[in-house]
């Protein structure tokens, strides 16, 4: 029988990644004598090795074996837990991850790194004088020398053999797979009937095996599990050549044994058909488990709650259809309450389904302890990482896509935020810097904060740099927050020289773009000598959006709630017209450029002058703008549909949705609209204008 195991490879890979994560986080917290932690690391390595071997990933098995041996020595106390070893194990975890990722992506990996680490592991193991590498599984390649021979096997089991669950009959059956078997029982030791202990075995056997191919090793293997509990003498006898009727004899034996060991269950004939011709190990190549797409493991509770909800939905549905059978006006109240219930069911069902895609953010946070560990070493800065709100859930896709921007922000905090120890001490701060990663829900979105207690953003340096790079004009006056926003401008980097840590060619502008691509936004706050906070605001999911429905002319548009700062009725005295077409609206301290949507989208609107319309103030690209609309309608959750499937992308529109009445409504792409309205190059101009106005009025 051929069993194709490749279908289990994705689950093996998933499990391996979890195991590697556990190894990594445990290694980072490893302390002397912490047996349980060491044990769990060992177990993870052990499982990976076992799985890899089973699926034929020899390179992983071989490598992991060394890791496991090292861990085993630590576990047994034969080896002290030294920082060097922990470091080596961390690097080994990286190597294993690299190899397993290569399996997943059917890609290549850096063989030289594996080889180097492998050597280091070997050296480390040899240092520990009495290292005895556990012997690998016995070579099961059969010595196929044809020897058409008759074997005589004397099998004298100890009396307690059956107490370990072994059954001589089954052993003989297995032996019969090698050739023809004849068995002769010896009852010499059988005591008087009154002295028989039903749990003991008193018989011994002389077996004859006729086989054209079996070797002594094959025979020994059958008795492998009982070799310590019996006398086993195997010898070859070419003279003996009986035509034994194996089955019959074995049947006879069976009866005999049954009477001796009374608790044996009724034996059934085994029906296992092993196809010898098909012994190829399960090939791994057919597996396709790319990092995207993948599967989600869902807790049983989530599935159960879904099933419950579907149950309720079915009840509501049958209630409603019964009501519809002979409806009259007197049943109106029941219909209303039925529909109410349907609404409730649908809502809960939707939430439940969305929750399936939700994972705790700890999946994204998990990599940071290691990152901080490595960065601390590299920079020589002493840094403590605090993780908060790790159980906050967000959509799997959002999580996957926010991971890299977060890494960049944390690198940035280490590199530019936290000062070197001596500077910190000189400034009266604790020697050890702290970086806090905090996640929490706020309304329909998730907020991730990266806080450091470092030196804060150097306002002067940022300003000078921006002038130098031509991003702003020297005469420009900017508020603190406007200056901080400059670090997100393309081509901006305050590091004096590109450092190995955060200057890897990706700037904060990329971070910001990625976050915006997810429909989120990023803000920064900073105070000299106290530290900086980067606040990332993200939608909980990409599939559903909390929207404000607005009307412009005859069209209904949806503005993502996450971008909305406030909505207001225009007060004519707060309108400023500047440089021709541009309209600014005074909103407390800010001057907000007004964007007439009808004009931008070439529509006609009910109110085409600012004075009579409503403004929805939104924020994106670090700018606040007021969108001119005719009316504010409901707020509701909408399912996002792509326009691209059957059409193509449209400027200023991020997608469409289907409203309750079946009609389509467009979702506004706020950053896109701002770009359309003022153009990329004009942005800074507007900023300057805004600040100069501020300057004049202040």
């Amino acid at each position: 029988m051929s069993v194709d195991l490749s279908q289990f490879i994705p689950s093996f890979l998933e499990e391996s990644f979890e195991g590697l994560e556990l190894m990594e986080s445990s290694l980072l917290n490893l302390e002397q004598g912490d047996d349980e932690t060491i044990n769990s690391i060992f177990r993870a390595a052990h499982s990976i090795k076992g799985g890899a071997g089973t699926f034929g990933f020899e390179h992983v098995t071989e490598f992991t074996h060394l890791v496991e041996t090292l861990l085993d020595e630590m576990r047994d106390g034969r080896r002290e837990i030294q920082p060097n070893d922990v470091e080596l194990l961390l690097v080994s975890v990286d190597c294993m991850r690299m190899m397993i990722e290569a399996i997943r992506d059917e890609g290549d990996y850096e063989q030289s790194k594996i080889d180097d680490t492998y050597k280091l592991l070997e050296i480390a193991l040899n240092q520990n004088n009495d290292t005895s590498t556990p012997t690998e599984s016995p070579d099961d390649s059969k010595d196929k020398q044809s020897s058409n021979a008759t074997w005589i096997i004397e099998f004298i089991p100890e009396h307690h053999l059956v107490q370990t669950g072994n059954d001589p009959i089954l052993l003989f059956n297995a032996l019969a797979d090698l050739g023809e078997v004849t068995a002769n029982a010896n009852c010499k030791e059988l005591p008087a009937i009154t002295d028989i202990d039903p749990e003991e075995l008193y018989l011994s056997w002389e077996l004859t095996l006729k086989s054209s191919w079996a070797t002594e090793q094959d025979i020994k293997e059958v008795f492998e599990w009982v070799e310590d509990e019996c006398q086993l003498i195997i010898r070859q006898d070419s003279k003996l050549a009986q035509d034994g009727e194996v089955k019959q004899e074995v049947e006879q034996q069976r009866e005999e044994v049954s009477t001796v060991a009374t608790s044996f269950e009724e034996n059934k004939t085994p029906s296992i058909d092993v196809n010898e011709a098909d012994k190829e190990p399960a090939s791994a190549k057919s597996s396709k488990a790319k990092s995207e797409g993948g599967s989600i493991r869902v807790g049983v509770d989530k599935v159960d709650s879904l099933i419950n909800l579907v149950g309720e939905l079915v009840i509501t549905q049958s209630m409603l259809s019964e009501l519809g059978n002979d409806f009259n006006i007197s049943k109106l109240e029941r219909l209303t309450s039925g529909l109410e219930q349907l609404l409730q069911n649908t809502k809960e069902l939707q939430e439940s389904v969305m929750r399936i895609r939700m994972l705790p953010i700890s999946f994204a946070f998990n990599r940071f302890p290691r990152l901080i560990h490595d960065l601390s070493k590299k920079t020589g800065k002493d840094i403590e990482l605090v993780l908060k709100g790790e159980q906050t859930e967000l959509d799997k896709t959002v999580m996957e896509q926010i991971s890299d921007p977060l890494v960049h922000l944390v690198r940035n905090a280490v590199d530019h935020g936290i000062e070197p120890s001596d500077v910190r001490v000189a400034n009266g701060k604790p020697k050890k810097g702290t970086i806090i990663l905090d996640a929490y829900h706020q309304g329909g979105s998730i907020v991730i904060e990266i806080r450091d207690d470092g030196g804060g953003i150097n306002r002067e340096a940022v300003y000078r740099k921006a002038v130098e790079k031509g991003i702003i004009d020297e005469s420009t006056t900017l508020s603190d927050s406007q200056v901080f926003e400059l670090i997100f401008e393309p081509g901006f980097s305050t590091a004096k020289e590109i450092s190995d840590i955060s200057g890897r060619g990706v700037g904060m502008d990329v971070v910001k773009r990625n976050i915006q691509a997810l429909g989120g936004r990023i803000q920064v706050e900073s105070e000299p000598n106290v530290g900086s906070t980067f606040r990332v605001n993200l939608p909980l999911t990409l599939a559903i959006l909390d929207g404000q429905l607005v009307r412009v002319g005859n069209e209904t548009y949806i503005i993502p709630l996450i971008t909305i700062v406030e909505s207001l009725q225009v007060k004519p005295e707060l309108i400023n017209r500047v440089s021709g077409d541009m309209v600014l609206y005074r909103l407390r301290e800010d001057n907000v450029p007004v964007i007439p949507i009808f004009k931008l989208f070439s529509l006609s609107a009910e109110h085409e002058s600012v004075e009579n319309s409503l403004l929805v103030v939104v924020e994106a690209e670090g700018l606040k703008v007021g969108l001119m609309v005719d009316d504010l309608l409901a707020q509701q959750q909408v399912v996002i549909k792509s326009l691209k499937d059957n059409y193509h992308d449209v400027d200023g529109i991020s997608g469409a949705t289907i409203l309750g009445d079946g009609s389509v409504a467009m979702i506004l792409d706020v950053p896109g609209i701002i770009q359309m309205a003022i153009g990329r190059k004009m942005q800074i101009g507007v900023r300057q204008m805004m600040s100069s106005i501020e300057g004049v009025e202040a």
Partner: protein
Amino acid sequence: MTKILVVDDSNSIRDMVSFTLKGAGYETVEAKDGKEGLNTAQTGTFDLVISDVNMPNMDGITLCQELRKLPAFKFTPILMLTTESSGDMKMRGKSAGATGWLVKPFNPEKLLATIKRVVP
């Protein structure tokens, strides 16, 4: 039908062993560690127990010792899944009452062939 209890903390190994056994016509019940295995064992009768050695909560050796204390498992074959084929591991298994061991990595054919030594 021959009923087999499979105890392993690794999902993929457990799935795979189960899959192989089911494919060969055995009935299987799974448990994710020794503790769960022991609890599950008490809910019915089994013709064979296959257990990993290294597991959280309760390891395979302890599971084996505990099972042997139960009357229903006095003679039940218990096979340990191990990557270590060292004599030491076998001795520990034997002294705990294990029937035999399966050395990982195993292939499905080998698994089916070897368990024939202990289950009908």
